[in-house]
């Protein structure tokens, strides 16, 4: 593991393996590089230089005073610049999917894969507000509501994989509240404006891969904002489709990637 220090002084832990075109992996909320399981090895075997980073406040990276999307997108930029890999394929899961989308809106990369993070956030906002008192409550309440959320999104993960994913999580209340601050405090209209501002600026090839069906209108909505996007639903696999079927995931990434792996 190595460290990249961002311009605002946050230590970002990264791991690197393999050689070939660069792929950057960005995990989801409360998770870390470890949550990718066998995916980095499989990507390296498929001919990639695989870099996995821990988001600020997560895994081996440093805590910060702010966990907003722009800061985390800036961290992606700092990592890619440090690695001299501005033409990377950026793959983000869950929160990481939002982060890499925000990065791609302003920063250079060759393509984006967003794993199971719908960019339409109004439904998520309603759900989150319903449990807001528990999220801001005692540690026990907070942990219970987070566990409930992840359980709901389990989908097709077998017991061992589900336990492995759950074991990689660290439920840190101030980090989670910091990350979700915008969703919890912005009006629906403000949130829409942020999402449209981010998504509308993405021009590179964009694969949205969902293990939980984002709904019948989602593909049309997303492509109206990101014309280069394609939406795929691997129905029933749940929130971690890349953990449910890692080999299939890597093959799909390879087929989508505009760069030919060595």
């Amino acid at each position, binding site marked *: 593991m190595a*460290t990249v*220090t961002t311009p*605002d002084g946050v*230590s970002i832990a990264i791991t690197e393996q393999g050689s070939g075109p660069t792929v950057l992996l960005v995990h989801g909320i409360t998770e870390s590089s470890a949550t990718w399981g066998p995916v980095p090895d499989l990507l390296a075997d498929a001919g990639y230089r695989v870099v996995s980073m821990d988001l600020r406040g997560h895994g*081996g990276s*440093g*805590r910060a005073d702010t966990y907003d999307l722009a800061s985390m997108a800036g961290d992606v930029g700092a990592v890619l610049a440090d690695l001299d890999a501005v033409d990377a394929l950026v793959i983000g899961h869950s929160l990481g999917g939002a982060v890499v989308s925000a990065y791609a809106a302003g920063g250079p990369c060759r393509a984006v894969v967003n794993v199971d993070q719908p960019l339409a956030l109004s439904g998520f906002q309603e759900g989150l507000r319903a449990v807001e008192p528990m999220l801001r409550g005692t540690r026990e309440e907070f942990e219970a509501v987070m566990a409930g959320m992840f359980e709901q999104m389990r989908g097709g993960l077998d017991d061992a994989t589900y336990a492995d994913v759950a074991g990689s999580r660290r439920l840190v209340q101030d980090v989670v509240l910091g990350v979700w601050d915008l969703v919890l405090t912005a009006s629906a209209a403000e949130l829409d404006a942020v999402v449209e501002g981010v998504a509308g600026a993405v021009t590179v090839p964009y694969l949205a891969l969902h293990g939980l069906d984002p709904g019948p209108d989602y593909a049309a909505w997303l492509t109206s904002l990101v014309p280069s996007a394609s939406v795929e639903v691997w129905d029933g696999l749940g929130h971690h489709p890349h953990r449910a079927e890692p080999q299939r995931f890597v093959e799909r990434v390879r087929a989508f990637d505009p760069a030919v792996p060595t």
Partner: protein
Amino acid sequence: MTVVTAADGAQLHVDDRGEGMPIVLIHGGTEDSRSWDPVACLLVEAGYRTVAVDLRGHGRSDRTPPYGIGPFTADLDAVVEALELEDPLVIGHSLGGAVGGALVAGGNTRGMINVDGELRLGSYTDGMKRVVTTLEQDPHLGRDSVDAFFRPHLGPLLPERERQRLDEIRDVDPEVMIPLWTSILSMTEDELDDTMAMLASVVEVPYLFIHGSDPGAAYRRRIGELLPWAEFEIWPDHGHYPHLVDPERFVRCVVAFDPAR
């Protein structure tokens, strides 16, 4: 990056990572918290929370006097309190070893590891005086003078990668270094020894010294008198940065020493 406000309002930058039993990491002079990176990564993997501080006048912390072991120790007390660190293990390198020694004398820690930080100046005195004189007379030569001071202590085993990293981190600010080093040099050997004895007399926690070269029989004997329970390790040829020569060994050593494990 987390910011802690010191008693006088100075903003202190803190690199706070991981979860678990807390470890406070204190860097040496002219460096900052980043010098701990390879060690902090491994400690987090081993299940610790690491809190690496930028001492005032260093790294991203405010450049607000006073600079000295006393003020640095008060700042660390503020960090331990603000981040609610319960009985941290304290690890200090070089100048940070002296600061850590003062911190653990204040209580509420579970142990101290001093990494190649002599609690007296001994052979360093003349070199430090030369650096201060150069900084006062011609600040432009300050960096060369500091590099010349550190070079003989890097040791043959420090990898080129780490040499370059330290080179990038090292920051020679005459506004900080002149008052800091002058305050350290203002004490005679006897006064330093008295201070060391006074601090040692109130220390109750496990203590480990790791040196990258032998600091000499007289010093080892004196440590043995003051801190009879202290462990003393010498890693030959590892130089002033034994923890960066072999971070894996260093972390194994921390885990084995840590009274909480």
